[in-house]
């Protein structure tokens, strides 16, 4: 993003607000069991905080928080977490994505709860990384990006 001038107010406010957006994103992911939310919504909030800093501070300073090269690998890692959870259930004797067979806990219903959480973490990671990666891709080659 092209910056015409340094505006300390925008820099300060966005740096103050971004951590809270990120915290709220994590809350939405991890509290999805009890309130509206989940991986997709939380991942979008995390990406919003990263992109807010890139918009206000410029992409170069924004790189120090979330480097550009991490985008695609983290997205793949998120999808791998999902597939890995499913495969772990398959290897441990159940059907694909049957979380009841993954030994997170002794009780079967609790195992399903933990399985849902691990899947949601994977979704959140992938959504965040893909959104930031698309933003970076669009800015690729832009002068003063």
């Amino acid at each position, binding site marked *: 993003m092209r910056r015409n001038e340094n505006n300390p107010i925008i820099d300060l406010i966005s740096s103050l607000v971004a951590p809270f957006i990120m915290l709220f994103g994590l809350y939405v992911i991890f509290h999805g069991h009890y*309130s509206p939310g*989940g991986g997709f919504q939380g991942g979008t909030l995390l990406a919003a905080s990263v992109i807010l800093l890139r918009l206000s501070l410029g992409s170069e300073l924004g790189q120090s928080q979330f480097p550009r090269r991490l985008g*695609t690998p983290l*997205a793949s890692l998120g999808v791998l977490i*999902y597939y890995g959870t499913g495969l772990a259930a398959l290897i441990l004797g159940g059907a694909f994505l049957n979380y009841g067979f993954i030994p997170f806990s002794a009780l079967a*219903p609790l195992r399903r*709860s933990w399985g849902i959480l691990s899947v949601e973490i994977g979704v959140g990671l992938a959504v965040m990384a893909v959104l930031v990666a698309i933003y970076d891709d669009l800015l*690729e*080659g832009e002068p003063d990006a």
Partner: protein
Amino acid sequence: MKAANVLVLVAFCGLLIYAATGFPNRGDALSVTNRESSPAGTPNAPTHYIRRAKEEAHTDNMVTAILADYRGYDTLGEETVILTAGLICYLLLRRERSGHEKE
């Protein structure tokens, strides 16, 4: 031609609004989708989810339990679609730059 377009648009709007009046009210206990069993007599899936989601998945939020557990394959596919979209953006938008570097 423009008048015909507007006419078709208005007619289509009218058709959609007419169709929308046929929907059951929200929370209508007697509508087919909200009944305990389908017209054929088999149990409806939502009945099972509402009754059993809490005990089976130990998750208070029924929507999360359905999305990530009962319908896990669907969410897996959605996530794969998102990754594919990201990879395609990567392929389409980054290729140009590496070409410039080689020149």
